[in-house]
């Protein structure tokens, strides 16, 4: 594994996140280099989602600091971050294209440019941009892919994906995994939380193991015996 000289894109220093008395993160110290694909693994409730939300700036660490793309104030670099959450982050009553048009507007992409960007994003996840059906009536797999398309709208340099393959059929999941690999090759940084690390094994640079709110191990190969 080549050691990159570029400064880390994410630096977490003693990050603790508590909800009342429950500690979701118990002191995360980690650096993530740019242009890599990281696969984040761990049991349910280990703190994977909280880690992603903290990096995305949606949750403030109770203690410790986190800096993303060189900024402590994550809001200032938010236009370079793409986030795909477990919920779809889409309006069920609107079609996929309408949804994306709206969110593109939030990033200052309007009119023809928005039409173009949204079509491209939808096509890149292998969906039909002209599909005239509200997202609420999509299958779970389609919704997941549309959700990924939404995260790609602003052409982010850092992508945070929370369970992108859950409920997606095997074939589509493989296609998505290939797409993620391509994005890494374009120089994007990806953090992917998943229960199906096997799909990403060819593309992944590093596997990050989380247990009860701490990073317990980082390996370049998937350990034997996991799924």
């Amino acid at each position: 594994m080549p050691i990159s000289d570029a400064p880390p894109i994410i630096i977490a220093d003693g990050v603790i996140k508590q909800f009342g008395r429950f500690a979701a993160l118990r002191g995360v110290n980690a650096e993530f280099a740019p242009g890599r694909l990281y696969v984040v693994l761990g049991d349910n409730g280990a703190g994977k989602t909280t880690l992603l939300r903290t990096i995305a700036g949606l949750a403030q660490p109770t203690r410790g600091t986190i800096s993303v793309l060189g900024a402590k104030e994550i809001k200032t670099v938010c236009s370079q971050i793409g986030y795909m959450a477990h919920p779809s982050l889409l309006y069920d009553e609107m079609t996929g294209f309408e949804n994306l048009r709206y969110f593109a507007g939030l990033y200052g992409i309007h009119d023809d440019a928005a039409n173009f960007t949204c079509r491209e994003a939808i096509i890149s996840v292998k969906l039909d941009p002209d599909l005239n059906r509200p997202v609420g009536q999509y299958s779970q797999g389609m919704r997941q892919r549309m959700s990924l398309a939404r995260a790609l709208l602003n052409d982010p340099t850092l992508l945070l994906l929370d369970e992108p393959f859950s409920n997606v059929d095997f074939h589509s999941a493989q296609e998505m995994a290939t797409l993620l690999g391509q994005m890494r090759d374009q120089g994007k940084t990806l953090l992917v939380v998943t229960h199906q690390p096997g799909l990403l094994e060819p593309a992944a640079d590093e596997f990050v193991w989380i247990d009860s709110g701490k990073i317990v191990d980082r390996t370049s190969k998937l350990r034997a015996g996991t799924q």
Partner: protein
Amino acid sequence: MKRGFPILAIVTAVLLSFALYEALIGAPTERSMGDVQRIFYYHVPSAWTAFLLFFVNFGASIAYLVKRRPAADIVALTSAEVGVVFLTVNLVTGPIWARPVWGIWWTWDWRLTSTLVMWLIYVSYLLLRRFSSGGQAPLLAAALGILGALCVPFVYFSIWFFRTQHPSPVIGGGGSLDPRMAHVLLINWAAFLCLAWLVCWTRYQLEVAKRQVEEAQSLESLLEGSR
């Protein structure tokens, strides 16, 4: 600071007893209302103290939003809570005075009504503090504190206009006040201010202790999990 507390407690006790003596025996008896008028010496200072405390709440709310210091938040909480207590005294003694003088417990006179509305505003503030938890609670409370304070002049102005259009019983004590009575009133106010200061101080220390305990508890749960 520690030694200041008993001194203040003694000063308050002495002042309160002296003020009580002055109010019951020292002050001259009002001609038309008789002894009942002596409620005045508890009724009015309570209201003034409450207004002062709400003003402190307003200041502390702004200070918290600007500086984000927990101390400002505790001051805001303390002043609102003690303010509500004092305003409750004012609202309870009012009808007890009104009954023998006007023959009715309550009238929708502008002063009574606007004081009641103000009481409602700050009770809703305390409710919000009760029903929100976590790191964001102080922010929400501060926002409400500011809006509530902005609302107070509107409340008084609108209700004043509303009720003066319709004739209503006139409150005694308005107009010129006997200098001896004014003297007693001021002594009582001083005594109640001391009491308010004392109670606020206690409440403040209590909240500080409570937050320290919570901090320690969360730290403890943090350590337990990492074993």
